[in-house]
């Protein structure tokens, strides 16, 4: 199919992006890597009047470390993050997750901000952001605000972003000494959106986990910070018993939708298996 008619503009400054968004509120869409937007246009699933191409805006690019926080610009390509020594050192969870995001060609264009703004419930990066307690900087002509990842995702492709707002960057706490993380997902084929996935982050003392942060994605309408499962592992030495407690807690708090790819029960089961394996791997990595 061919995309419906739309106008296209490629501003040179952040301010003009924000002005265009304000001026065409509700009728404009940001074009970042285009890996998700272009297919929806070509399938005529959405018909925006105006595409605002942000690829020229340098302020949205790059990855940097400031005061223990890694800043990932909205326009940072998946491939850039994957190859970033900074991300590898300070965000091992994201470095671990990135090879699971799509395939090389898609990663060459797809952007960090695009993935967060799109809020696909089976996407890896939103879940990593939730697990790591990241926050996002949003800008509009009305000003800037910072929103924690754990309250940014509202539902299926729904976020805290207002129609005139642009996602500028993600701010993610760099991993602190003594912390480890592990990423695991299960997909039918490599690079597919996952049937279930888990992100695990904690301080590891011997085989005791503290400050546990377990996030799940792939079955529900948004990534979930698994509070009960995280609590079940908190401060305890990892054992079969704790493993079972974490699995039981996940069974209690996850409420995935079944689809033809996998039923709700299968998705919960997979999340439980992956969570246990992720902790095993995290401990083994020591």
């Amino acid at each position, binding site marked *: *199919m061919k995309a*419906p008619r739309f106008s296209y503009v490629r501003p040179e400054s952040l301010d003009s992006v924000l002005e265009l968004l304000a001026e065409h509120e509700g009728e404009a869409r940001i074009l970042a890597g285009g890996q998700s937007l272009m297919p929806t246009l070509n*399938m005529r699933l959405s018909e925006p009047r105006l595409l605002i191409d942000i690829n020229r805006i340098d302020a949205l690019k790059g990855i940097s470390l400031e005061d223990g926080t890694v800043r990932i610009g909205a326009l940072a390509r998946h491939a850039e993050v994957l190859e970033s020594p900074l991300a590898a050192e300070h965000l091992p969870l994201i470095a671990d997750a990135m090879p699971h995001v799509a395939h090389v060609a898609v990663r060459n264009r797809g952007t960090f901000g695009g993935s967060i703004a799109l809020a696909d419930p089976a996407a890896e990066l939103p879940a990593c952001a939730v697990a790591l307690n990241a926050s996002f900087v949003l800008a509009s002509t009305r000003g800037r605000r910072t929103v924690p990842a754990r309250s940014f995702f509202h539902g299926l492709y729904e976020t805290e972003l207002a129609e005139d707002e642009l996602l500028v960057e993600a701010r993610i706490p760099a991993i602190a000494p003594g912390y480890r993380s592990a990423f695991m997902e*299960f997909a*039918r*084929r490599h690079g*597919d959106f996952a*049937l279930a996935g888990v992100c695990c982050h904690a301080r590891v003392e011997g085989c005791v986990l503290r400050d546990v942060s377990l996030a799940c994605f792939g079955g529900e309408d948004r990534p979930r910070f698994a509070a009960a499962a995280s609590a079940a592992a908190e401060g305890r030495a990892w054992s079969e018993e704790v493993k079972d407690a974490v699995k039981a807690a996940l069974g209690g708090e996850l409420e995935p939708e079944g689809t033809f790819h996998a039923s709700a029960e299968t998705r919960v089961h997979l999340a439980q*298996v992956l969570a246990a394996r992720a902790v095993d791997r995290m401990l083994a990595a020591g």
Partner: protein
Amino acid sequence: MTDRPEAAGRPLPRGSARRLAAGRGRYADDLRFPGLLHLAFVRSPHAHARIVKIDPAPALAAVPAAKVFTGADIAAVCTPWQGKMDHLPTLVSPPQHAVAVDRAVWQGEPVAAVAAASRALAEDAAAAVAVEWEPLPAAAVRDRTLDADAAPAHPELGGNLAYAAAIRAGDPEAALAGSAHVVEACFSFARHTGVPLEPRTVIADYDPGEGRLTVHGSHQAPWHQQDTLSRHLGIPEHLVRVVTPDIGGGFGIKLHIYGEEIAVSAVSRILGRPVKYTADRLESFISDIQARDQRVEARMGVDADGAIRGLSVDALSSFGAFASYGRAPVNEGMMTISMAGGPYANGHYEGRLRIAFQNKPPSGMYRAVGQPIACAVTEQLLDRAAHAAGIDPVEMRRRNYWAEDAFPLRTPGGIAMDRLSLRQCLDRLVAMMGYDALRAEQAALRRSGVYRGIGVATFLEMTAIGAERYGPAGARISTQDGATVRLEPSGRVRCVTSVIEIGQGTLSALAQIVADRLGVAPEDVGVVGGDTALAPYGGGAWASRGLTIGGEAAWRAAEGLRANILELAGSILQADPAGLDLAGGAVCDRATGETRITLAEIGRIGHFRQDTLPPGVQPELAVTRHYAPDDVPFALANGVQGSSLEVDAETGGVRLLGHWVVEDCGRIVNPLLVEEQIRGGVVQGIGGALFEECRYDEHGQLLNGSLADYLVPMAAELPDIHVGHVETPLRGTALGAKGAGEAGTVGAPAAVLLAVNDALRPLGAQVSSLPITPEAVLNAIAAAA
């Protein structure tokens, strides 16, 4: 049999590889036509619905220059067709229009065609056409389509049964009753489709001045298209020409008659302008033919020593909304019941087949037609029987193969078999895959909770089917192929063939054959095809026939030209042609090998200097030959496949570790081409085993009609595929080649299914539905616990 050729047999890279890899392919969609209009279709959103009213006014308001054609508009210039087979009078299928008239019978069936100056405008207009629908209940659940209360796919037929057949040999009931072990299973094979990289594309250009229709299209069987267009549009056949440019894969999808494609010609005829239609990927999923879709209940009985005593197979197959037109639509089901049990000695067999209509896209011939089903059913039962009798699966096969001295024979399923190489292939495979070492490793890993599985499956591949199978059906498809071989004045050679190149590299192999016959290098032979007005009449590309039939025709044409060249050389040299031979691009002395005259000189004199020849000598430097299989009804290839994999018992995931194939496609003209076919076929077979499925809901709505949700196998999931060869030349042809295009697809699903169940056996779990999803594995394990 002639002596072993030189170029034929060599692993030469195919001529077109460099061009295609460099992006210089020219596919139908790349072609440019002045004044071209683009067609888009309005499609039924319902699996079954009455078309109450079609109002083009909103479309014309949106795109004033657009033209809207309803089914009735198209029917005014194009007669409907019917998927009948003359020798099967009980087969019913209603008339099918290019564009639906009154009633749509599957979700996605075209109900109006819209022409405009660009595809985008045509889509804008098509989206605005207002159709009033009266939805009807749909027959959409295969296993319930024959229930008394099932909704009818076609109310006028009074039921969904399209065709039923039975095969019987010996006394299967008694044989099964008297068996030491009886194993049984109910298998399900999902509906899937072919997904060629290049979607279906057709450009029709009707010239009202001369009443001539020229069609460029991505077709596997252009002569079939020519015949259909001529008869249904009423254009004399000599004025219809079908040209096939580069084709990006077919897999059977592109050998059928599609309403959209015929409608393109109808609209061109009405408007007198060139018209194009390219299916996009979403349309492909709801309009390309679909395949497989069977439930098979089967039982096998064996003696205490593992010998098969009897086999019973009961298949429920599905046509979709229509029996496909002009071919052999019953074959998916018939292949299941005629090929089941094929490689194994057995006298007691019963096969039962019922084919039902559903409100889904028409089913058709997709790579390997029914044979993967026959293979998976047979091999899985044999594995279970081996387990019941306590015999190693490889040994089980060795014990049950037809005896070497049993050939030629006719199986209880009715398959004529010439000499096969079953044991040789099995021995090669066992050695290649290191079967014993894999078994030892499997046992060791099982103790540490790792579930590895090994599957070994014997396959038969029916290739190069002759007229005996299609002729009596009244199918107007030619099972012969032709070739013209011509000496050019420079001494180079040109071959024009009816074989259609769809990505398999056959034209390169033809060059190798012709080169050998004429004593020139393969690069000095140019091969072209793909034009029904210029090439000899033929069949095209289907049923793994290109080399077996088209290669034999090229061999014979080259032999004819060789004789003519020698005769002409004889009169030029005043020598006896019997004492002359062709080698190194020249005519040479047969006894001494000394060069007498170059082919360039023969070409020059034969084409330009006839005045220097003795009176009465007419140089004939082009020869056309046709070949139709005559000695045998088809060429039966055989082989064995092995799969090694690991099942993750916690996630249900299957990781493929290795795949091995030993195949016998008779004489190998180019091992690289054969191995590519085998590997590609294995990949498609693995797709059927683990991934591919058209998922429909109970109302006939496709749930996964995109490449995001319809999973095709991708490189990361695939193991190395090792290929070995055994060569048993085909009897009755000079070339001796059998087909190899479907072998991989026939055997791979069985090998993978067997391996998964081998891995699951210690858990007490088994699966018998393809594709084998992680969820199905988990459910099987849970059910066993």
